[in-house]
């Protein structure tokens, strides 16, 4: 091949790389799967410790914007209620209200989910919570997430504190979600040993 063509190909290849770098610099750091690793876990853990020491605090936390509890309210005039939860790794707290206001309030707080050190808690879908006659159904859709993770070159990782291994072997854990259910004063709940009643 003539040198002229070789030079053209080399220039084209270098230009492609340079253009890639220019474009790369303009990519906004938005919508990416964020790596706020352990933020949700730490917040959740702190709240759990608080509740353990003082369960009444949960009543305050549900109205705290920082915790972003999802709220569902149902009008209910029945005498008994059965609570059915499809997923069993929940912490369920039940608080009997002081009045009989015929309203069932359900507050849901997602358990922290961390995969490879990446916090997925914020992208999880809320459960479907429906009141069907005298049964409160809490169901979850099966959720599938797939994502791409880049590891930095060995020539970068060698000189930086955060080694590539730390990314790939980042912690993976599924935390149990928290349900806080406020029921009218005289509503009878069909017993379940997993429920914790708050005074």
């Amino acid at each position, binding site marked *: *091949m003539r*040198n002229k063509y*070789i*030079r053209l*190909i*080399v220039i084209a*290849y*270098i230009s*492609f*790389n*340079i253009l*890639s*770098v220019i*474009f*790369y610099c303009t*990519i906004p*750091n*938005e*919508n*990416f*799967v*964020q*790596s706020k690793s352990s933020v949700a876990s730490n917040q959740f853990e702190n709240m759990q410790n608080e509740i353990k020491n003082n369960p009444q605090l949960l009543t305050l936390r549900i109205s705290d914007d920082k915790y972003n509890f999802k709220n569902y309210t149902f009008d209910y005039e029945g005498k008994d209620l059965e609570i059915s939860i499809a*997923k069993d*790794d929940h912490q369920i707290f039940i608080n009997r209200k002081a009045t009989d206001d015929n309203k069932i309030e359900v507050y849901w707080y997602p358990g922290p*989910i961390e*995969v*490879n*050190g*990446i916090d*997925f808690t914020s992208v*999880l879908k809320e459960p479907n919570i429906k009141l069907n006659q005298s049964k409160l159904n809490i169901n*979850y*859709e*099966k*959720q*599938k*997430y*797939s*994502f*791409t*993770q*880049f*590891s*930095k*070159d*060995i*020539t*970068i990782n*060698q*000189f*930086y504190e955060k080694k*590539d291994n730390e*990314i*790939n072997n980042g912690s*993976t854990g*599924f935390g149990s979600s928290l349900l806080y259910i406020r029921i009218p004063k005289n509503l009878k709940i069909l017993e379940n040993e997993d429920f914790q009643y708050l005074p």
Partner: protein
Amino acid sequence: MSLVKNNLMTVVKKQYVFKLRSFSRFFLVIIATQILGMLFALSNAGGMSATSNEIYSFSIDYNSSIQVFIFTIACVAGITAFLNLKEYKDIDFTFVSNRMSSNLSNIGFLVSLSLFGAITSALSGVSIRVIKYLFISSSKIAEIGFFLTPLEIMCSIGATFLYILLLSSVVYFCTAITRISNVFIIVILAAVLLLPQTPIFSNLVSFYGKEHNFFFFMIKTMITEVLFFLASILVSNNMEVRG
């Protein structure tokens, strides 16, 4: 003394420019190898993993540009071996030259080739990220590992260059000694096969690969490269002009 030095440098410069022109196809070989490496990298050769519970299921595609790095380093090592072949060596004698100028121009050419390979290899990592970004939604890409700082890119170029040149200097030395006697071919082959099984090899890998300070890494690799190139020059200087 000064005159001799100038003459040598002039010849080296002429030979270097001549080699850049006549061996320019080697740059194409590097480009082709890197494109192949990029195709491997883009085809999710980095592997996958999955984790789930009864509700949530996560699958992760791992991506890296390690394939481009390995392909490039292997390619430059291959080219280095070619440079010491008799057919390529004889090109030097189209000039009034000696072994010294031939070696120095070869080293200059290898440095240029390594630099080209290092820059394009490191930037290929960026290109791979851009291509992935264009073809899959950013909401499917983990922020961690995707964004590189300019310093990290520079560091990658520098370290890749030093690694390529390191292997290149070793291969250059090996091919130089094989021109003394064919016995060295057997010795080198035996060393390639046996050395990875010895603790010396893991110590050597640690010596360079576990050096986390870039400056010390640069010093270590550059000293090794200079030593290997010097040894190659000494070995070939003792050979006849068209050995």
